[in-house]
Structures are given as structure tokens and as C-alpha cells.
């Protein structure tokens, strides 16, 4: 398995928050979904990955190369989309293209113009006149108009309508058709991640709780329903979390440890995340 991105023992301490020993790998040709609550450390991890903050310890490798020391070469092949478009509101798409042409050696003006047409982005309209959806689309067009091998998308689909989101997800899936390409995608819209991701990493309070293949992850757990007494009798080491209400209880349990005869459902990513966060045993 060739690695597009590896974060090895990344730590960063702030007065009120610590990112602790983050380790994860994004294999080439895959999409990694990064999930967690607000303030869990998603953006801090992304910033450490892109050299926007200085980690206290740890190393980032992109395409097998150490990030520190070859930052400029590596960044030539990374496309980044932040949760808000960071372009000046006074510029139009044509001018943004003209700026980027002078920054990226691999900038492809033809591809940029083609993508603008494909996404119906008016070249001469100023960014301040764009809707949020248009701004995000423009950011993605910019990320795709140079030789990006790794796309880093931070809440890129948040606040967009389902039609636009679906179109963007198709774009991401098309992007990874090239086996050299990979995507790191952080989002609160877990249904989007479930649709497109190959791997899921879950971070909570600055620590990575798991980083696994999505299909294996969804096979690994089951939601077991029963009376509160039945749930309490489950093997404690097999239970991730329990939720009780007046009608009974349900628990996220390791699939292999479910006693015969108990009703169980397949969880989705949201269930897995919620049981990890709220379903304290």
C-alpha cells in the first residue's frame, strides 16, 4: 500500500487544548474522512498537516517525503479547500486564475477555464457577488487546476444544498479514479463521508480514537437493542457505549461479541460517532 499522507506522532499543546500523538495514514487512491465534534482537533490536525502550525513533535510525510524541508515542492501537488473561500472579495475568477498562474508552476489555465464553465462560474463576476456554494465551487476548481495529487478539504461541503454537494462528491470520486490521487476530507455531514470515503478517522479531545477502513469499521460494530437489564449483561469489554431510555436500551457492541438471539442493526457512521462521544457506559 503506497502512502499519500502519513502523520506520525503529531502533538501540539495550547493552553486549553492539546492535540495528542496523532497518527494516521491516507493510502494512495483513497478518500479519508476525518470526523469529530467541534473543537475536537480536526482543523488543528489539518493545519499541522499543511505546515500552518508548528507541531511540538511529530512528522508529516507526503508521498513518502518529509514535509519539512520540501514544503514548496510538496505544496505544488496539494489542493486545499478551506471551510470558507479565502480569496479577496474584490477579485473575479479570471483574476484569481491570473494570480494562481504566477504561483503554481503546474497551473493549467485551460483546465481552469474548462472547470469554470463546467461549474457555471462566471469569469468576470466578483467573488463578493457569489453565493457560498459558488465560492466553494471556485475553491475546488482552483484546487483541481494544478497538478494536485492530494486534496485537503476542510468542511468543503458544509452549508451547500444537496444538489451542489452531490455534484462535488461526484467530482471527488472522479478525482480518485487516478490511483496516484487521494483526498483528506473533514466534514460534519457524515452521510457525505459515508457515500465517498474509504477510510474514517475519528478524533475526540485531540486524540485519534480510531482510523480504519470504512467498510471494516461498519462491519466491526452492531447496535444491539433490548431491555436495560439485557444490555447491562453484555460483556463490558465488547460495549462501546450505551443509551438508555424509558422503553429500553441500546448499545454499540463489537459484532463478534453479540450473544445469540439478540436483535442487532447495522450502524451508520453517525451512530458510531455518537456512541463513542455520548454513549458512555
Amino acid at each position, binding site marked *: 500500500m503506497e502512502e499519500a499522507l502519513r502523520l506520525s506522532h503529531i502533538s501540539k499543546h495550547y493552553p486549553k487544548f492539546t492535540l495528542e500523538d496523532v497518527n494516521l495514514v491516507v493510502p494512495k487512491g483513497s478518500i479519508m474522512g476525518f470526523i469529530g465534534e467541534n473543537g475536537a482537533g480536526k482543523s488543528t490536525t489539518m*493545519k499541522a498537516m499543511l505546515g500552518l502550525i508548528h507541531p511540538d513533535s511529530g512528522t508529516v510525510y507526503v508521498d513518502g517525503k518529509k514535509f519539512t524541508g520540501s514544503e514548496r515542492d510538496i505544496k505544488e501537488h496539494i489542493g486545499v479547500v478551506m471551510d470558507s473561500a479565502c480569496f479577496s472579495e474584490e477579485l473575479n475568477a479570471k483574476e484569481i486564475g491570473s494570480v494562481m498562474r504566477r504561483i503554481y508552476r503546474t497551473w493549467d489555465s485551460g483546465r481552469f477555464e474548462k472547470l469554470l464553465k463546467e461549474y457555471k462560474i462566471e469569469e468576470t463576476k466578483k467573488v463578493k457577488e457569489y453565493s457560498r456554494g459558488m465560492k466553494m465551487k471556485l475553491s475546488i476548481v482552483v484546487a483541481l487546476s494544478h497538478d494536485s495529487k492530494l486534496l485537503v478539504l476542510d468542511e468543503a461541503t458544509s452549508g451547500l444544498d444537496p444538489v451542489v454537494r452531490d455534484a462535488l462528491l461526484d467530482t471527488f470520486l472522479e478525482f480518485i479514479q487516478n490511483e496516484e490521487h487521494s483526498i483528506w476530507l473533514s466534514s460534519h455531514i457524515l452521510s457525505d463521508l459515508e457515500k465517498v470515503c474509504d477510510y474514517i478517522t475519528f478524533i475526540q479531545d485531540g486524540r485519534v480514537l480510531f482510523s480504519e477502513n470504512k467498510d471494516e469499521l461498519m462491519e466491526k460494530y452492531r447496535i444491539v437493542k433490548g431491555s436495560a437489564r439485557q444490555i447491562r449483561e453484555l460483556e463490558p469489554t465488547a460495549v462501546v457505549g450505551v443509551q438508555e431510555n424509558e422503553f429500553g436500551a441500546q448499545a454499540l457492541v463489537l459484532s463478534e461479541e453479540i450473544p445469540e438471539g439478540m436483535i442487532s442493526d447495522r450502524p451508520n457512521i453517525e451512530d458510531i460517532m455518537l456512541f463513542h462521544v455520548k454513549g458512555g457506559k
Partner: protein
Amino acid sequence: MMGLVWQELYTMRKTIRLYIVAMAVYLMIGWTTDNLSMFFPLLVFFSSMLVIAGFAYNEKNNWDLFANTMPVSRKQMVGSHYILMMLFIGVGFLADILLCTVTAMRSGTDLWELLAGQYAVFAVALIYVIIFIPIIIKMGSERARIILVCLYVIPLLLLKGLYDMGFSMPTEEQLHLLLGISPLLFAVGIWISFRISVSIYRKKDF
């Protein structure tokens, strides 16, 4: 790095246009009243203010956060501001020289005397900006503005203090010597300011 410079020029074109219109109005007022003495310093100072405005626009758009994900080094990020500084102040100073020449020809004033005054204004503006850029990089444009006000007051107080202590004004010879070596002093000042700014910017977390 030129991409970064163009980004700021595109972003600030409205402000630049506004400054040009404001300058044209001041020029017309000065021209019709035969008093351009206030106009010349304004020209250079407005140019230096553009440098500061550039930082404020970038902060508003979160540009540095995004720009640092692109293949540009932190040194280049800082360098683009120094290029713009030299461009804005340089253009302001050239326009100043041109207008001084026209004024001298029109009114018969001594051109060299006019230019010497403008060179002093240019020098003060440049000194302020090269001190101010590292401060703005460290503190951000909002908080740095308060310090900018102090920066204007401190030299005046210092001069007054020196005057009160009985220090005499420099002689004409000393002034000529200072004028002669001033380009070198500016170059060294810009270089030191740039190195300090790069060092601050490299340590920044976004």
C-alpha cells in the same frame, strides 16, 4: 512571489483609485490656491498607508491562511509586502519629484530646495513603514494601528527632549553627509526590517 503581489494589487485597486482621486482633489486645491506645501507630504504618506491597508485586506480575507498552503515560502509571503512598499512609496516619490519640477518651473522656486524637503518627507515615510511592517506582522493590523499613533509621537518627543537638553541642529555639512549616505542607510534599514519580519512570520501559527 509575483502572484502574491498581483493578488494585493487586484484587491486594493479600489483603494488605490480612491487615493488617486483624493490626491487629484488636493492637487487641484493646492494648484488653484498656489499652495502645494501640504500636498507633497500627503502624497508620500498616502502611499505608505497603502502598505498598511494591504495587510488589513489580507487579514479580512484570511488570505495568509490559504496562501501558506500554496507553494510559496514564508520569506516570499513577507517579501511581497516589501515589494509593494517599495512600489507604492517609489511611485509616490516619483510623482512628488515630477510635481515639484512643474511647480518650480511655474513659480520660479528653487527646485533643489523643494526636492530636499520632499526627500526628507520620503525618508520619514520610509522609516515609519520599515519599523511598522514587523510590528504589523507580529500584532495584526488592528492592534498595530494603536502603536502607529505612538510611533508618530515618540520621535517628536525625542526631538523636543534633545532640543530642551541643548543639542544643536546639525550643520549643513553634516546634513550633506547624511544625504549622501542615506540610500545606503535605507537599504540597510529595509534589509534589517525584512529579516526581523521574516523571523517573526516564520514562527507564526495560523
